[in-house]
């Protein structure tokens, strides 16, 4: 086993140079909750580990003048959870982030890591997608921005090019009359990887009619799904039983899950519909409270 170099760059440019120099053999260290497990299991064998936590941009969580947020890719869940503003604006995103593992994992777990690990079941991802978050990527060719749902390419794979890494995320300003929610199904009450995850963000008008919606499912396909038919089923409705049934059916139809040690195809499909209904109800209740 070769020894691994450890680097702690203080700027984005330094980090990009290190990643380029390693020619695909570098691994980013944010919270380490996936990286160290994979290292120990000999699933990866990097020549250099680049700890990005000394780069300011990756560690800050700022509310911008327009009400949007810029979230550093290496901010830990526990830090975000302590912020009253973002928790009030986007409880679904924070809940989803908060569900990544135990309290100890929360002390480290980052959105950047959760997304780039590209597990189909990553808890934060459906909520980020539903909220319309985008990723700010830095690389040898400069900066670019991608919607979160376009970052993952398949289990364990991202669309990031060699030398690129996510520096931060943009979370839009909370729309007035907006609400979001994230629910997941796990066999125990904590500590499990999501068997199904559902993130929903929607807006209501004063009459309680859904004016916009985004529904995202996790753990039921190779990457996170955006279920447009599910959104269509509820937009323009007041979430009557027929609309909810259509939502449920649309989610079930969109699923392409697998049978594995965590759930069966049948189970994931059915529960995707159940969670969608419940998440929509919670999001709507939150939206209505504004």
């Amino acid at each position, binding site marked *: *086993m070769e*020894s*691994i*170099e*450890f680097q702690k760059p203080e700027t984005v440019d330094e980090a990009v140079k290190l990643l380029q120099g390693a020619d695909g053999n570098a691994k980013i*260290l944010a*919270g*380490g*909750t996936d990286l*160290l*497990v994979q*290292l*120990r*299991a000999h699933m990866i064998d990097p020549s250099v*580990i680049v*700890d990005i*936590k000394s780069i300011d941009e990756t560690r800050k969580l700022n509310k911008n003048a327009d009400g949007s947020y810029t979230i550093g890719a290496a901010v*830990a869940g*526990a830090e975000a959870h302590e912020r009253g503003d973002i928790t009030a604006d986007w409880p679904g995103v924070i809940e989803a982030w908060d569900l990544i*593992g*135990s*309290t*100890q*994992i929360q*002390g*480290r777990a980052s959105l950047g890591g959760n997304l780039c690990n590209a597990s189909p079941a990553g808890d934060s991802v459906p909520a980020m997608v539903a909220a319309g978050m985008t990723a700010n990527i830095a690389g040898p060719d400069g900066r670019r921005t991608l919607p979160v749902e376009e970052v993952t390419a398949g289990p364990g794979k991202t669309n990031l090019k060699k030398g690129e890494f996510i520096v931060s995320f943009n979370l839009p300003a909370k729309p007035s009359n907006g609400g979001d929610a994230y629910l997941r199904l796990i066999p125990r*009450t*904590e*500590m499990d990887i999501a068997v199904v995850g559902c993130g929903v963000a929607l807006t209501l008008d004063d009459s309680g009619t859904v004016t916009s919606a985004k529904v995202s499912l996790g753990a039921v396909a190779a990457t996170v799904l955006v279920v447009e038919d599910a959104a269509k089923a509820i937009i323009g409705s007041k979430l009557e039983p027929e609309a909810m049934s259509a939502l449920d059916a649309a989610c079930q139809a969109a699923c392409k899950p697998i049978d594995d040690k965590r759930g069966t195809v049948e189970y994931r499909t059915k529960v995707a519909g159940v969670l969608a209904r419940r998440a929509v109800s919670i999001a709507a209740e939150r939206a209505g409270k504004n």
Partner: protein
Amino acid sequence: MTLNGEPTEFLCSTRQTLLDVLRDELNLTGSKEGCASGDCGACSVMVDDRLVCACLVLGAECDGKTVESIEGMADGENLHPLQQKFLEEAALQCGICTPGVLVAAKALLERNNNPTETEVRYWLAGNLCRCTGYDKIVRAVMSTAADMRENAK
């Protein structure tokens, strides 16, 4: 790094986790390895005032950081109220999960000195215990919280 209040130097390879450093380099075996993958919490420590699993932190990351392990919980001969309560309430049987549970519980009570039973259980969900069924652990944490609130008056 600063470990339990003392400046501490160590040498490690990139591959070594903070847990490896504590146990193998610094001979502090109070933090335990139950799984090496962050699923059991037996290696719980505080790094820069955050509760984390030491098996998921690289030793190399801890340069310049403040680390607290179980060995730093008692103040000389004086046990921390949680440690004392655990003994009085029999909140341990084999004791292997106990250091991790104590570090985690201390972190909780420092943030929230009036947790509900549910809050205690969810906070400690990352600390696996196979012996106690968690009952006496949760009672001991809540009882210590009550004592701390009483003493704060």
